[in-house]
């Protein structure tokens, strides 16, 4: 572990710098999204499915006149579908002028965490999750996986639904 901690110091920007994260639960796991990337949090309503699209795209919806592409984070992370019947939430993010919504189970609080407490992804992390994770923070009693928003949105058009 100490070896990994040493490695993180490379990615550290400055001594004692902190980052704010919006936390979200997806499939029982706590994730953190850098707050600078989060535009808003909304309840996805009137989601229109898009035929022939990747299974990771839940659909499109109208958010105040903008068409938002909604990404199903459970599908993206390779997790089973949500069946607890609770309405899903979505975190709005922007990428190159386009709006996206990341479908999550539940929104949490905003945490301010020191950069140097972030650790590299454990080597045995599920590869689908590891691809999207930009490190892990150890919190009291649980771990928070930092979501790399850019990588989450690197959806390949070839991942077509069967």
């Amino acid at each position: 572990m100490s070896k990994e901690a040493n490695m993180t110091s490379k990615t550290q920007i400055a001594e004692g710098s902190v980052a704010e994260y919006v936390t979200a639960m997806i499939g029982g796991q706590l994730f953190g999204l850098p707050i600078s990337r989060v535009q808003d949090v909304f309840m996805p309503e009137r989601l229109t499915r898009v035929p022939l699209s990747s299974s990771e795209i839940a659909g499109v919806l109208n958010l105040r006149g903008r068409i938002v592409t909604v990404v199903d984070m459970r599908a993206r992370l390779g997790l089973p579908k949500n069946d607890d019947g609770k309405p899903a939430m979505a975190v709005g993010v922007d990428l190159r002028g386009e709006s996206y919504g990341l479908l999550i189970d539940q929104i949490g609080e905003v945490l301010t965490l020191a950069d140097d407490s972030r650790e590299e992804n454990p080597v045995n992390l599920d590869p689908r999750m590891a691809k999207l994770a930009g490190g892990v923070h150890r919190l009291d009693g649980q771990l928070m996986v930092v979501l790399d928003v850019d990588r989450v949105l690197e959806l390949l058009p070839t991942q077509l639904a069967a």
Partner: protein
Amino acid sequence: MDDLLREFLTETSESLDTVDNQLVRFEQDPNNAKILDNIFRLVHTIKGTCGFLGLPRLEALAHAGETLMGKFRDGMPVTGDAVSLILASIDRIKEILAGLEATETEPQGSDEDLIEKLHEMVEHGMAAMSAPAPLVASASAAPEPAAPVAAIPVAEGTLVPQTLERALRPGEVSLDDLERAFQETAIEVVAPALVPSSAPEAEPRAASPKKEAKEASKPAAKRPSADLEVVAEGDKIANQSIRVNVDTLEHLMTMVSELVLTRNQLLEISRRNEDTEFKVPLQRLSNVTAELQEGVMKTRMQPIGNAWQKLPRIVRDLSGELHKQIELEMHGADTELDRQVLDLIKDPLTHMVRNSADHGLETPAERVANGKPEQGTIRLSAYHEGGHIIICIADNGRGLNTERIKAKALQNGLVTEAELDKMTEAQIHKFIFAPGFSTAAAVTSVSGRGVGMDVVRTNIDQIGGTIDVKSVAGEGSSVTIKIPLTLAIVSALIVEAAGDRFAIPQLAVVELVRARANSEHRIERIKDTAVLRLRNKLLPLMHLKKLLKIDDGTSSDPENGFIVVTQVGSQTFGIVVDGVFHTEEIVVKPMSTKLRHIDMFSGNTILGDGAVIMIIDPNGIAKALGASGSASHEIADENAASRANAAEQLTSLLVFRAGSSQPKAVPLGLVTRLEEIAADKIELSNGRYMVQYREQLMPLVQMAGVSVQTSGAQPILVFADDGRSMGLVVDEIIDIVEEKLHIEVAGSQEGILGSAVIKGHATEVIDVGHFLPMAFADWFSRKEMRPSQSAQSVLLVDDSAFFRNMLAPVLKAAGYRVRVAPNAQEGLAALRSGQAFDVVLTDIEMPDMNGFEFAETIRADQHFGAMPIIALSSMVSPAAIERGRLAGFHDYVAKFDRPGLIAALKEQTAELSRAA
């Protein structure tokens, strides 16, 4: 101020603003090709535009600068000195522009200093790099008012207001006021009133505005304060039109959409509560919102004619400069398109028209030598097709020089010799869109530096359009730009499939048909292919939910459904949907980049009720239709370009088996119906098989080797014409496929046109013309025969051997002498060979030169100007007919409409003999 000049100034100053930023980066990173390209394009545009605006000073300077930058693009190292020189040139251009804006004429002065240095830099290349820096520096310091413009106080005046050394004359405006007016008003508002200048040299020019000013304010005219009135007049003009940022409009549009959504919610609430006092005001709100929405949408639409305004003058000036006679034809100037799109295609259009004039059209002497009229024609047309806006720039010049393009492509390393050998001519022509590609042997001041088509392609790509070039050596070339709906507002039909709503652009929809099991229109099946009988034609059908793979399995009745009859190019097909709601004006929003790979959708939109729905792309469906038939026999991967080409000439073929095990085929369009007749219904009469069919006795004809079934059902193909039907007995109907009909081996057997490869199998294509007379000996001849001595001659041009063989006997039987030509070029050759024809009958969809271009060529030829031309096409829509009329067709007949064809021929030839 002259509209053109004003436009030029606005545009150039906008470009200069962009380049300003880039210039700074250029200095830091002089070898960045992209920045260089951008500056190069700006200079190129300035050069081009001022050529016809009569601004020699700017033109000379820009030309010299461009030459140097061209060298940089070719790989000459960029040095600090060179950068300074270019910066100095840009500064000088700005100065001249400022003068231009103030006085409407170029400030006098000489740029020889800069031009010389630019030339020197080019000529000496590396050597000049070490030229004494101070010289360059002094040039780059040119912004000092004293330098080149010193001769003119006016130009200086904008910088140093108090240079006037006499009192203002009546009607004149003080420079300070002018300056203020310039700052207070947008550039477009630099109205005539602002022209008056105090410079003594400007007197003659100032005369007319002075008069205006007097008229505007007679009592005040004698007082110096007249300037106030002048400015006031400027304000008035300003109020009539203002420049609004498209972003502002976009924002407005979004807000209106929001308003509509809110209104809809309110209406919903009021519907639930019957007697509310809100009802009346809500109704008003609703109406106002609708009007507001319409108004905002309108602000974004402009006729394409706005982008064409300056072209006639460009062409006129070019024809003088190049010593060519050029006529510019413009069609469809009122086709509306989104302002944003319009802006982006303006420059490409100008470039292409200039290219046509410079490279495309020959000199009058050359034209005469080639048997063409002295005057060349450039034809611009715009129209809507299948939810796209098509803009076509065509000339009747010499066409692209394939050999030279090949050589240049090799030279530029774009392609290898081996690759070239495998390419078709059309693929080779596409190289003209590669950056830095110019085949013009001589670099003229008009074009030929290889920026033009590069810029064109970049701009078209930006708006997601496509561009295609077609050329026939010696006959001319045409560039077709296809701009998708994106950004535009279209009327769309809202349909339902598997519970979801989709929008189908109304432009592609021909009609709606409700299919029911027991009605005339019902969905039938040939194997797994669904078809609809519609007015004696078989229409291939596609189920939208199957196509989109959202079939929920609840598809109840396979024989019922709503069918949206859709047309894309020459293909007509039916889309089966579960429900049809209404039509709605929708604002097309581009698809997310994550979804753009789905061919079936061209965009998405927000409906009035706030829901997002996908817009179906009829082109994508047409592609899927062509592909679905081939699902079991995957065709070898062709490259996308040739596939797109092939798609245009697909023919629906009915594949069946008769006699031998080898499959046979017949174009579906010729078949009226497919029937299965119980074997016991078939009677033998007078040695022939007959069947009672629709209260008539229909003769059955057997192909060699086919025996009539004695039990069960007998499949037959029914061919009907003019109230008579005949049945062709076949063994088995196999499939309906979309395939390019290309008969490779001519048939030796009676009744077989030849063999073609259809879905990977050698298939015999039957000659329907052979079987028809077997049923009724007089099938073709009963149409009124004409005495043969007065037989009129027809030139039939069709690239499909099938239709040539099919139609020639029909025409002969109707009493015409027929000469056939397999393509437009041979058709032209036949016309020019001296043989007299009374009428030309031509197919529309042909490779290389299509029917429209063929007709335009004939129209342009002085010898055949009056020749009646009839278009023969499977693509019959009001838009196509209109397009045909513009191209010069006298009539437009559907390919399989034999009675219509004969009638049209009779009418045209009768008119001709009346005229004679």
